[in-house]
């Protein structure tokens, strides 16, 4: 990618692709592995061209098995490599759950720092693409509940470009979520603008009516809702969590102390989710500032439904605005 200051329009998919390239250029220990990531460039083409340019020694088309992908990545990390693993779809990360939770997340602690696990697990997540079962899930809470992992979610092309590089540079295992239905959204990337640190949430829009927190694919939904709400004179303060574990809630507390109201938005089922954690923490930390209970707008506590129902399942602009009405009713 041109390192000139000239901003250029890139899609979120391209942002990750270019970020991967930059990371592989910067460190020869960075290798990419997963199902169909080589010649095909991945089913979403995120790794497009990488095998051609970096070779089969650094971009590995693996056999079909997620536990095998993560388990061998752990071994490669012990050897000094920095594997970037692609899980083809959110719904297929579960066969690797044991290796992620009992090995990847714990080897640094188990070895008391003698072993480092600089492994990135890339997972396209969320719905909205009309897919069949297992291709539209939001498993991020499983990982946020797992000590020893770091979990991040990018929501736009510019973050995608920087966050993937920061995740690869991180010496801890990072579960990296990519909002698949936003892969094709564009934004202008200006390389002369330094990125914020990886483990920081970010204020995207200021407003005094209420605070709305989101991450990944629903950030765009919330920004759209804010635009509509403004027409009715309601100013939403929008925060993109970006980091799901550790959570960076200080900016949320500050915001809620000003607005007195909070809406948390996520596609995942709400029960026992990281959004519940945000609600619980804010309810505790901002106990005297909250003028209304924290409201959650999430996927339902059901399996992800057939695609024809997903428009109803996914939190959309209307449901955010509906929650706004309800939170203001207190």
């Amino acid at each position: 990618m041109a390192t000139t200051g000239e901003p250029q329009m890139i899609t979120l998919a391209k942002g990750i692709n270019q970020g991967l390239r930059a990371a592989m250029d910067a460190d020869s220990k960075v290798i990419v592995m997963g199902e169909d990531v080589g010649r095909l460039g991945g089913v979403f083409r995120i790794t497009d061209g990488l095998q051609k340019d970096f070779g089969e020694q650094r971009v590995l088309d693996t056999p079909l098995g997620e536990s095998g992908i993560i388990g061998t990545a752990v071994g490669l990390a012990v050897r000094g490599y920095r594997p970037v693993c692609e899980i083809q779809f959110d719904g297929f990360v579960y066969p690797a759950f044991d290796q992620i939770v009992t090995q990847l997340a714990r080897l640094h602690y188990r070895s008391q720092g003698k072993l480092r696990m600089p492994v990135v697990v890339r997972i396209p997540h969320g719905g909205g693409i009309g897919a069949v079962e297992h291709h539209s899930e939001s498993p991020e809470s499983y990982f946020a509940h797992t000590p020893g992992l770091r979990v991040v979610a990018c929501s736009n092309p510019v973050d995608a470009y920087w966050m993937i590089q920061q995740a690869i540079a991180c010496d801890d295992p990072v579960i990296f979520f990519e909002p698949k239905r936003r892969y094709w959204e564009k934004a202008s990337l200006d390389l002369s603008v330094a990125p914020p640190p990886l483990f920081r949430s970010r204020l995207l829009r200021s407003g005094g009516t209420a605070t709305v927190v989101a991450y990944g694919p629903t950030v765009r939904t919330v920004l759209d809702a804010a635009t509509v709400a403004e027409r009715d004179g309601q100013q939403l303060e929008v925060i993109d969590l970006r980091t799901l574990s550790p959570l960076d809630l200080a900016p949320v507390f500050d915001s809620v102390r000003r607005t007195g109201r909070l809406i948390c938005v996520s596609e995942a089922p709400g029960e026992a989710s990281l959004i519940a954690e945000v609600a619980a923490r804010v309810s505790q930390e901002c106990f005297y500032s909250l003028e209304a209970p924290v409201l959650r707008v999430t996927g339902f506590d059901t399996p992800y439904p057939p695609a024809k129902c997903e428009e109803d399942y996914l939190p959309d602009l209307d449901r955010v605005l509906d929650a706004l009405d309800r939170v203001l009713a207190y």
Partner: protein
Amino acid sequence: MHFRKRAPSHSAPADNSVGSPIVDGPTVGPIIGAAMEIDGQHTPQQVIAGLRATGEGEDLVQLLTPEGQRVSHPQFDLEISPAEIRELYRDMVLVRRADREANALQRQGQLGLWAPLLGQEAAQIGAGRALAPQDMAFPSYREHGVAWCRGVDPTELFGIFRGIDQGSWDPIATGFGLYAIVVGSQCLHATGYAMGQRLDGKIGNAETGEATLCFFGDGASSQGDVHEGFVWAAVYDAPVVFFCQNNQWAISAPLDRQSRVPLYRRARGYGFPGVQVDGNDVLATLAVTRWALRECRTGNGPVLIEACTYRMDAHTTSDDPTRYRLADELEEWKLKDPLERVRVHLVREGLAEQEFFNGVATEAEELAVRLRNYCTSMPAPGPERIFSKIYAEPSPSLDSARAEHLAYHASFADREPGSEPGSEH
């Protein structure tokens, strides 16, 4: 890179024959090896040949050559009438036509996705027609031909690919499990079901005994669940036939990304028989699968079958095979087309008249029209479908969530209809 014609990128040591890549397309050769696994009726030479894992196909069971020539096999011969062969041909023509129609419907936005079976008709019809009514089959997501054999109409598959449901047929009534999208997961379900058949005492009689047929792919063979299925089935003597359709590709991964040697060889390591069959030969596939199911009925399960075939179309309608495989590979496999060889055989041997072929062609067109009409008129589910039948027992919390959402939903007078399913992989 991963063209099967070339040595695999991580090529095996030259001095280690087991390491060489396999090229096991259907070829007519001395018919040995497969038998080796099951009985003692073989010469030492055959044994050694069978051991050499060059995968050059000398183990492949074949009863009908690509040229439509009937050949015999010492162990897997087949008593079959011309009428029965015509039926198999008809099945293959109809499922291919249904597959092509579904593919077209996806192109026209009527389906969100389709996983084509093109090229795998013989493997699926041969295996499917070997099933007895009392048997159970567990498919992956591409077994449209097996569904056909189980009386599951293609229209019942559409709901999955149109985003309306996740499989509308009754697995128990049809003896055909729901499609399994999590690769390999069904192999444990099939094994458990077969354990149940044994626990129920349904094993022993070669005619009335029960068996289970489990479908999976060459890529799936790498999954831990498939291995555990093999282990459990062997330990519990489960009456399950593991039917691997080796269509040479797992999306963009050729067989050398999964194994150095033909997959049927795996069975030996678990202590049960493995047979490699020409999966583009409907007669051989029928014969071998019948034999394997019979072994299971009489208590000699499990059995592994590797059916060598070819995925002639893309992985799914979202896939672009031109990115990872050469066109001439497809051309080569067209010469081994599973339908054509039966057609040639029927004609050459005078087992079918022209009007038979005309009749089948007409039937196929009528089927296509019926499928199209059905698909385009499928009603979209309402929002309540989200909450439908998640639990067998009452769930007050879901009931109130449903009520709440429906009330919210009703508050919109002029809500847009659900958008069409988009692309996926």
